[in-house]
């Protein structure tokens, strides 16, 4: 979790997204303990209350649960919840801006489709190698 924080987004949101990304990349698995608010505060030089707000967003969505006096942990269903959320956001966050730029630079739909197909094929091959 050593990504740098960005200036143009709320910090608590970035803390939440960082944990989510670690969950879908299997860096954090179900029942793993996540760093405490003080650990986040120290690492990113942020107020502990800001870190707590980010973590509480995930508690509200059942991605993280608290064990009183022990710490905070990843729930069993965390990965499924985050995956669904990220998929729901995918069109707006990635497809829409890509299509806007494509239109701006007069890229044809066929060209885009070809690239996406090729990228998927290449991606699948490199996945097989892993």
């Amino acid at each position, binding site marked *: 979790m050593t990504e740098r924080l960005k200036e*143009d*987004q709320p910090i608590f949101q970035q803390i939440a997204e960082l944990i989510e990304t670690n969950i879908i990349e299997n860096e954090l698995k179900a029942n793993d303990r996540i760093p405490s608010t003080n650990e986040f505060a120290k690492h990113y030089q942020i107020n502990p209350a800001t870190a707590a707000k980010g973590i509480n967003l995930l508690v509200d969505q059942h991605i993280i649960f608290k064990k009183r006096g022990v710490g905070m942990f990843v729930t069993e269903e965390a990965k499924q919840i985050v995956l669904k959320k990220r998929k729901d956001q995918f069109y707006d966050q990635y497809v829409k801006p890509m299509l*806007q730029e494509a239109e701006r630079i007069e890229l044809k739909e066929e060209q885009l489709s070809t690239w996406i197909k090729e990228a998927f094929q290449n991606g699948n091959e490199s996945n097989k190698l892993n």
Partner: protein
Amino acid sequence: MEMKATNLTKRYAHKKALDDLTLTLNGEKIIGLLGKNGAGKTTLMRMLAGHFPATDGRLTINDKAPFDHFPVTKDICLIMESHNFHEKFKVKDVLNISAKFHPNWDMDYAKYLRKSFRLEEKQKVKTLSKGMYSALGIIVGLASLSPITIFDEPYIGLDASFRSMFYDLLLESYQHNPRLIILSTHLIDEVSKLFEEVVILHDGKLMLHEKADDLADKHILLSGNKEEIDQFAASKNIIHESSMLGQKTIVLYDEEVSDTGDLSVSKASLQELFVYLTKEEVNGYVPSSEA
């Protein structure tokens, strides 16, 4: 701890430093106190430390007035930009004397901090560089463990590396001894992440008092096509706008927006907010030879 200013006014001979200020700060929080030069920050902090009385209105700490009243001020440690310590003292003397004034003083911690900042016990205050003088103030403020610890621009002359260490130490100290810490600064970008609450004073009045995490939702930066921006923001509270090549960027104050369409939305940084809220407009100087 709770500090409460009610219609607080402080008048010096020629001007009002604080003008009918009403503000409550409480809990165990790190609070940023911001304002331009002359906004009244130092006056407010020195009044909290009991340095002088109000001209009008009330200032209380846990319902008691701090002016000239040690039972209240013993719980407060104010570190100013300068004039904190007598020139003839040695670093060691400063720590020993501070221990007598601050009931919660932790001498082991003070020594640990002194070593972190590489100060020698026998160095005289007079011989310290500006940065090391600031470091001594930081050491006293942190080791005081005072329920209200106030830093007024505590790091004049301190380099970026020691400043970053100060932020680490401040968070560590706050973690071990949660208390009300008030930090006044001009280096907003550097420290804004440390704040739980932010107060902005302007001309002796309260301009803003909010939770730091709420700032991002309430005040936003929008950019996009000029016509779309103008249409969208027609009746909104704009504190800053600038256009270039058909694109326009605006900063909205205290507006919640939805349906922003193709406009790009991001959070206004605390520094941007501060500047746009308190900046005077420059009308453009025309040299007389060109007039």
